[in-house]
Every structure is written in C-alpha cells, then in structure tokens.
C-alpha cells in the first residue's frame, strides 16, 4: 500500500549520474514534473489511463527529456476541487516542480486556474476540456494538449449535415457543463447547415436508468446524438440497443461516449456508432501504430482520450524543453515554448497551438467496427487542422457567451 510516488526517483538518480557527463544542463538536477490525476473515487478509471500515458512516454525515453532526467511526482486529487488545490500547492511549494500536467476534470482545472496564474507555473492540461479555459478565462500559464469540448462536435455536425445528409437530430446528453458545451457546439453548426435539432434530453450524471430517456426519443429523428462521459456512454449505448433502437435510428456520439477506455468493455451493440474525436486508436499512420503497439504491449489495452492526452502532454513538454535547451528553470521561456508548440507527427496527427493555448488538430470521424477481433473506432473521414473556433472568426466567436444548455441559433 505504501507508495513513494516518486516512482522515477531511482531511475532518475542513475540517469542523472550518467547524464552529468554529457552537459551542463543535467547538473542542475532532474526536471520535476507534477502530475495531477485521480486515483480515488468515481473518476479513477480516467486517472489511471492518464498515469499510464505519461509513464509510457517516460519509459520510452529512459526517463529523460532533452538530456535531463525526469522526476515524476504523482498527486491524487480524488476528483474533488478542494483536494486539487491542495495537491497543486503540494507539488509547487513542497516538491518545487517545474511544470504541472493535469488535472483531470474541467472543474478541477477551473479550481486552480487563479492559483496557477498567481504563482506562474507552466501547466499542460492533459484532459480538462472546458471551453473557457482557452477562450474567455484565458490563463497565460495554461496550454491544452487535448481539444476543447466542442471542437470535435463542430466537425461531427458538419459531417452529419453534409455527408450523412441528416436533417433531424435528437440529442441525449449528460446534464453538466461538458455535455452542454458539446451539444451546443453541434447544434450551432448543424443548424447553420440546414439541419434541425428536434429535442435535447438532459439526463442527470447520476441517473439510475436511461430507459425513460430512451423512451422519450423522437422516433422521427434521422439520428440520435449521444453526448456522454465516463461510464455513461457504456450504459447508454447498451440500453439503446436493448430498447430496439440500434437497428432503427443510427447513433452518433462524442469522443468520450465511445472512447477506447470503455469500448474494450462493450459488445456488439457498439458496432456502427459514428463518433467524433481528436484521436482514434485506429488512425493509420506509422506514429500511431507504433504508439498503439507500445500501449498494447504495456497495458493490454488500446489507448484512448486519457492515455494519449497524458502522452501528448509529455510530447509538449519534451518539445518545449528542447527549445529552451533544457533550462526549465526559466519558467517564462518554457511557457513561451509551450504556447508555441508545433508538432508535425504525433499519434493524433499534426498539432499546432493557437494563440489562446488550444491545439489546432485533426478531427476524426470514426465508426465502430471489428478489426482483428476487437472493437475499434475506424476512421472514416478526417477534418484536417480544426480550430477550437471551427470556421468562425475568433473575435466574433468570443463575443457570444460560452456554450450552454439553452443554446439556440439566433435569428
């Protein structure tokens, strides 16, 4: 049960000794990376995948970034904002970390947003997707390695309207900020392209049963869009099938509705679900194949949202550390490098950070199919270099309020 948490410490010491011969940078000691994740409570599955992502990244590099050894300090926030703040303080004030990766939930990131600015610590978000973190609540010390909530939803709406030629969509979504943002982003683009959102059903996050919501779905819809996070996608899709809708009304989903992290525990009912995301384990590039093979070897599972989110955060850090020549002590320079990330070849494709700290990245339209005996989100279309603002002008985009439950197209 005891866990020193600095699992890398031993390796770091060895690596530090050998690295010391090479250059001056290593003499300043290891790069201390504070990793905010969730090991306890309801969000622990995502937290474990985050941890797997960063550990794989470091293992592949012999625990060294830019010639300097890395000391990874993992802190468990339990997904409670009060703990998140304390853990951030612990990492910064006790462990003197140079950079923070995390936290998992959007509300956690918002809970420490002011503190990060106050102390000025470079922070890479490996999961928290809340729109305003890179839109209306800008933080110069914050950069995101994953998309904003609605970034993939805009693309799915475009695909649904133009390629799938759907006219009428019913939305069922988790009734919380993430569900509101992705649903509103979809609705906006879909309705601007001539579609109509028939209804928006909001199920509580802790709902006991989806039966009563599935029963309410308007049967005249061309498709149903399911926007869920955590375990809820798994639960909803199963029941959608049990209520006989799988064969009748096609199902669309957000990345997290059918993420690789839960897809592995789903059955045939998941087949045919079309979803949108900034990644799929089935992306057919050498970079991704190598990454997926490594994940399967290490963890016997396909990587998904969280695994790659943390892995990408590692790549961001590596790129920035190289740019500042290993001098992570210069926080301003490190942050500047992080805000200017431009990676050509990640498992998710090319990634470039926009001026708000959010990645411009490919959005993949995926469809669940059986590949080599396992369910995978096969890529059926790629929207290259998608911005968090979709095709809108950032200035005008930011003038309207953040996506919310009651979003409606004006005029």
């Amino acid at each position: 049960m005891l866990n020193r948490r600095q699992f890398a410490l031993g390796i770091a010491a060895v690596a530090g000794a050998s690295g010391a011969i090479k250059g001056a940078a290593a003499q300043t000691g290891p790069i201390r990376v504070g990793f905010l994740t969730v090991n306890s409570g309801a969000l622990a599955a995502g937290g474990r995948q985050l941890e797997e992502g960063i550990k794989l990244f470091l293992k592949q590099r012999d625990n060294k970034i830019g010639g300097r050894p890395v000391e990874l300090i993992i802190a468990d926030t339990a997904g409670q904002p009060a703990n998140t703040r304390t853990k951030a303080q612990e990492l910064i004030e006790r462990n003197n970390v140079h950079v923070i990766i995390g936290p998992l939930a959007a509300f956690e990131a918002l809970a420490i947003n002011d503190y990060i600015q106050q102390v000025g610590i470079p922070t890479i978000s490996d999961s928290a997707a809340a729109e305003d973190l890179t839109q209306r609540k800008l933080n110069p010390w914050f950069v995101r390695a994953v998309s904003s909530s609605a970034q993939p939803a805009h693309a799915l709406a475009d695909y649904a309207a133009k390629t799938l030629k759907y006219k009428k969509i019913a939305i069922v979504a988790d009734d919380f900020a993430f569900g509101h943002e992705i649903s509103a982003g979809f609705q906006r683009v879909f309705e601007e392209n001539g579609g109509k959102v028939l209804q928006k059903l909001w199920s509580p996050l802790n709902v006991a049963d989806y039966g009563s919501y599935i029963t309410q779905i308007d049967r005249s819809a061309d498709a149903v869009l399911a926007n869920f996070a955590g375990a809820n996608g798994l639960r909803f899709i199963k029941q959608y099938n049990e209520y006989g809708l799988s064969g009748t009304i096609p199902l669309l989903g957000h990345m997290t509705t059918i993420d690789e992290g839960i897809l592995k525990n789903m059955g045939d009912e998941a087949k045919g679900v079309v979803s949108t995301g900034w990644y799929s384990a089935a992306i057919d590039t050498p970079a991704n194949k190598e990454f997926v093979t490594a994940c399967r070897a290490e963890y016997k599972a396909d990587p998904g949202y969280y695994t790659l989110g943390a892995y990408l955060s590692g790549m961001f850090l590596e790129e920035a550390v190289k740019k500042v020549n290993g001098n992570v002590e210069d926080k301003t320079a490190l942050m500047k490098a992080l805000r200017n990330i431009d990676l050509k070849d990640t498992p998710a494709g090319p990634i470039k950070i926009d001026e708000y700290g959010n990645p411009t990245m490919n959005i993949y339209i995926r469809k669940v199919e059986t590949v080599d005996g396992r369910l995978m989100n096969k890529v059926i279309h790629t929207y290259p270099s998608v911005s968090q603002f979709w095709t809108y002008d950032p200035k005008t985009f930011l003038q309207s309020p953040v996506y919310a439950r009651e979003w409606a197209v004006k005029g």
Partner: protein
Amino acid sequence: MTRKSRITLISLSLLILALAAPLLMGQPFYINIGSQVLIAAIFAMSLNILVGYGGMTSIGHAAYLGTSAYVVALLTLQHGFGFYTASLVALGVVVIMAAIFGAIALRGTGITFLMITLALGQTMWGVAFRWSEVTGGDNGLPDIKRPDLFGLNLVEPGLFYGVMIALFVIALVGMWIFTQSGLGLSLQGTRDQPRRMGMLGHHVWLVRWIAFIIAGFWAGVAGIAFIGYHGYIHPLSLGLANSAEVLLMVIAGGAGTLLGPVVGAAIVVVLKMVVSAYVSRWVLLLGCTFVAIVILLPEGVVPGLERLLKAILPAARDDEEASS
C-alpha cells in the same frame, strides 16, 4: 490541582502546540493545511451543536457551508459587493435558510430527521448543479478574490492562517459559552430526556429549532472562510459526500465534546491532504481509521483519550473536595 483541571490544562497546551505546529514546519504548504484544518474544525463544531449536544444526526450540513460560499461568490463576482458585505448577506441568507429548513426537518426525529436533512441538502446540491445559468453548474464559480483585512494582504498564507486562528478561537469560545448557557443546557437536556424536559416546561421544539439556526449560522461562517481560502466553489462542496465527511469528523473526534470535532477535522484533513501524498490507497486508510476508532475508542478520540488519561493520572484527594 484537580484531575479535571489538569486534563483541561493538558488539552489547552496540546491545542496551542497544534496551532503553532504548521508555523514551526516552516513551509507555506503546512500553513495552508493548518488553515484548512481550522475551517473544517469550525464547520464540524457547528454540526456538533446538532449531533453532539442536540442528539440530532444531520447529514445535510454541507448545504449551509455551500450556500454561504455561493452567496459570497455570486455577490462579489456578479453584483460588485465587497467580500465582507457579501459575507454579512451570506450569513443572513443561511440563517433564514436554517430557520426554514430547521422547521421542516424538526417535523421528524431520529432517522426521519436525518433523511429530511439529507433530502434538503441534496436539493440544494441539485439546484447548484442544475441551475448553471447562475451557479455555473459543474464548472463552479472560480476567481473569488481573497480580501484584505485592515490593509493586510491575506493572500500571504501566514496572515490568512492568523485570521483563521482568530476566527477559530472566537468559534471555540462561543461554543463553550453556548454549552454553558441556559439554552445549551436545555439542548443537552432535550437530547437526554426530551419528555422530562417537556414536562419541566421547556419548549423542546423551540430549543432544537434555535440550535438548528445557530448550527446553520456557524456553518455559514465556515463557508465564508472556505470561499476566502479556496476562491472557488463547486456543487460538490454542498453535496452528500461533504455532509457525510463533516459528520464523520464530529463522531470520530467525539460528539458532544468541545474539542472532539476539532480533532476529527484534523484527522480527516491531514489524511486527505497530507498522508495521501505518501499512501496511494488513502481512502482505504481513512475508512480503516474510522473502523479502528470505533473499535479502540468507540466514544470518539477525545472522550476516549480523556478516559485513558484519567486512568493514567492518579486521582488526587482534592478531586473530591473540588466536586463537593
């Protein structure tokens, strides 16, 4: 010196030592932990009025802390109030809320009382979570600025801790005065002998209702300290888990004792915030700690230790004189 006064002296010295400990550790991190313990302690002491002195087990107490924090957050962020004016309004709001909720909850006793408080608390959580246009929903309300006090910038952890110590001492002394007051004694009477108290002419319902309001008031004070410390409020802070946690603090430390809730708060906060850095399965440890307390010191840590201490300290002759 009597045995009782010696125990009081030992407790007081330990308390002062505990208050000084975060400062002696020398890192702002520990000073911040100290502040969090004190906020939790004030919160737990407020619940102790109901659970310990009133014999009314509430599992919805986070509603008062949370509502108070939300009122401060909303007024300062959206209506241009200063922190202190907003705090006064917040206290007014929680007092009114406690008066209404108390009137409803006191329709029942025992498990029914517990369930009504749970339902009321979950309703407040549901409102905070769902009414996102106002409360920010799951995103919570961030960026509430810590105020200055007499020109001192409380962002400095040491100064904030100083203010928390002052607030804590006021709460502790207030609690002591309350337990010795006519109202406090009647409340303890209604806990032990409700029928007899009624026959003796005490208005049992009224006594409990006033106690409920006082408990709500102090939870509101804790809420103001909470929002001042964190600068952020989320529906989780007024949910069932938080209500259960503060109840566990009270029981683990020793319900119905002055220092029990303080010790309980320290145990929980230190396990959650400090020990969790060294023990990965700290939730399991927390659960086992509660079970161990029940086995070893079933009346709670403070009364349990007091019992052990009494067994160790030889009873002096003057004890009997003092008691006679």
